[in-house]
């Protein structure tokens, strides 16, 4: 039975489930490495999922949907940046407000555009890429995800930009004294997280559901942040953690139909997330100035 469950199929399903989490988690890494906690990622993913459907709905082109998702995510992140970096408002408060706003805004716009509050019409998903000479298909977004993971890892740890960004999260005052524009660096981190979070949301609506459903992110933005913490604020680590969450979600889907009440199966990702957060204690150290506003 174990062999049957741990099949290649399960791993591929786990990979698919981990995609939205990974994008959002990478976004979290950029934002928090620069010193800004971004719990608005939940809302960013939600507007991303919505944007992807809106863009695809009007153009019949999922790639336009993808761009719309990134734009919507960017805009929410921009508000978070202005409020929490420029106005130095508590980042959790700003993030919470934006999450509430995203729920209201997506339903509001959904009713205006689609004349229905609960869900949008179905849309065309992305055309899958086929490995040459085989029957294997893969979503372009998964390919993009792996590219983004590798690029992020290099950017954050091997480039001047990454060094500066990390400096702003570890000690913005030292960074400032060395002539680094802390405000600008923090803006860049948050805005990148908006774009990546939007992509994560887009995967949910474009690939998983092919429709936008009210509140469809169901806490994934927060799970992604837990993944980021578990992955110690590194892109590769975050991906590994999100893959673990994806595995939990894939297993969860396998368990349906074994006579366990669905509600308990639905709880699995949330319980796994809590266990992971408890398990990393003392081993995961956040950037020293993560969450603390910078005042010149």
């Amino acid at each position, binding site marked *: 039975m174990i062999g049957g469950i741990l099949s290649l199929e399960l791993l591929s399903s786990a990979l698919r489930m981990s995609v939205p989490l990974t994008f959002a988690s990478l976004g979290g890494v950029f934002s928090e490495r620069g010193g800004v906690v971004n719990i608005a990622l939940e809302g960013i993913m939600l507007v991303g999922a919505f944007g992807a459907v809106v863009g695809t709905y009007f153009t019949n082109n999922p790639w336009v949907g993808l761009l719309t998702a990134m734009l919507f995510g960017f805009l929410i992140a921009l508000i978070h940046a202005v409020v929490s970096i420029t106005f130095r408002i508590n980042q959790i408060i700003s993030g919470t407000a934006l999450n509430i706003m995203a729920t209201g805004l997506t339903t509001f716009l959904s009713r205006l555009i689609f004349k229905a509050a609960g869900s949008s019409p179905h849309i065309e998903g992305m055309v899958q890429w086929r490995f040459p000479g085989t029957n294997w298909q893969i979503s372009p977004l998964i390919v993009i995800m792996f590219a983004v993971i590798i690029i992020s890892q290099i950017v954050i740890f091997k480039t001047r930009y990454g060094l500066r960004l990390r400096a702003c999260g570890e000690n913005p005052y030292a960074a400032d004294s060395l002539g680094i524009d802390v405000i600008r660096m923090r803006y860049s981190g948050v805005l990148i997280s908006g774009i990546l979070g939007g992509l994560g949301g887009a995967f949910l609506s474009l690939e998983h559901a092919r429709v936008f459903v009210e509140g469809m992110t169901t806490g994934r933005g927060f799970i992604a942040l837990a993944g980021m913490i578990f992955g110690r604020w590194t892109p590769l680590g975050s991906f590994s953690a999100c893959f673990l969450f994806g595995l939990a979600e894939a297993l969860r889907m396998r368990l349906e139909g074994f006579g366990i009440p669905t*509600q308990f199966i639905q709880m699995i990702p949330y319980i796994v997330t809590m266990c992971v*957060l408890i398990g990393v204690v003392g081993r995961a150290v956040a950037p020293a100035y993560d969450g603390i506003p910078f005042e010149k």
Partner: protein
Amino acid sequence: MIRRILINILAPFLAVLLAFSVGAIVMYILGENPFYVYKILLVNSITNINGWGYVLFNATPLIFSGLAVALAFKGGLFNIGVEGQLYIGAFACAWFGITFDVHPIIGIPMGLLFAMVFGGLWGVIAGYLKARFGAHEVIITIMLNFIAIALTNYLVNNPFKEPGQINPIPQTKELFSGSVIPRVYPLFNKLGIDLSSSVPLNYTFFIAIIFCIIVWYFLERTRWGYEIKAVGLNPKASRYGGINPSHIVILVMFLSGALGGLAGVNDVMGYRYRFLDGFSRGTGFTGIAVALLGKNSPIGIVFASILFGILDRGALAMDVFTNTPRELIRVIQAIIIIFVAIGNEFIFRLLQRLERESE
């Protein structure tokens, strides 16, 4: 003193005004007359006694959830888990009410107690994990929200589902009369106030006001309240002062969760007399806006809850009489949070500068 009044009233007032202006711009873009929409919103909520009845009914759970968020804020914690605590509390008092057939003198306090204890225990999970393992309370409480909603969904669909039920939304059977909190219209009618018997305003509202006083007294006049505020202001310093921050974290999350649990009482014991699956649509989250707008003070929370009660009531009318979807109200609430936070910060800095200059 005048300055404090200025901060506490002017900043929230301006924030609300600005948020409404943003809402007006959105309506204008949609081709609606904002004055007409806001008129509809207000006419149906505050120009007649029945409208006020609904407003105060809507405000009741918001007062509790606002108090829950505010108490946690005072202790330096973000309780984003009020929504989950609300569901657990609501189910707990419903469970008491459908199980025990007792006199109201016992039934009502016991129902409240059940909501508090179970809501509090649900909150303590996050408090304990924070104190013991340092797990981030924001993520933990959010996860607990989803778990609480799934758990009550299971309970109301399976062991506690009303037999022979026809309602498409699952619900428990009706509470025994001993756990029902009565409506206020008979009293109001006796006093000569013409409140319609269809208005669901009930005594839970007055219980909420009493809890505002209790919370105020607790925070301002008791040792525990003092310690909570000390930890909230500076956990390190309070440790030198002989306070154990871990204990305070657990205490705060219990009390905050208990208040969150009470936020579920109005619907169960005062309105539907049963637990309805998924009845709360974000009351726990609106509590965050309420606490911020009310500047974490009980009296401020009452006024903020009434404002949001007006918005909720008006949103219904907006849906019926205008083309603006009611979700705009939710967006306006979020904008209020942001503007209030910015306003507080801004005025705080302004006053600091003025004080420095006057020295």
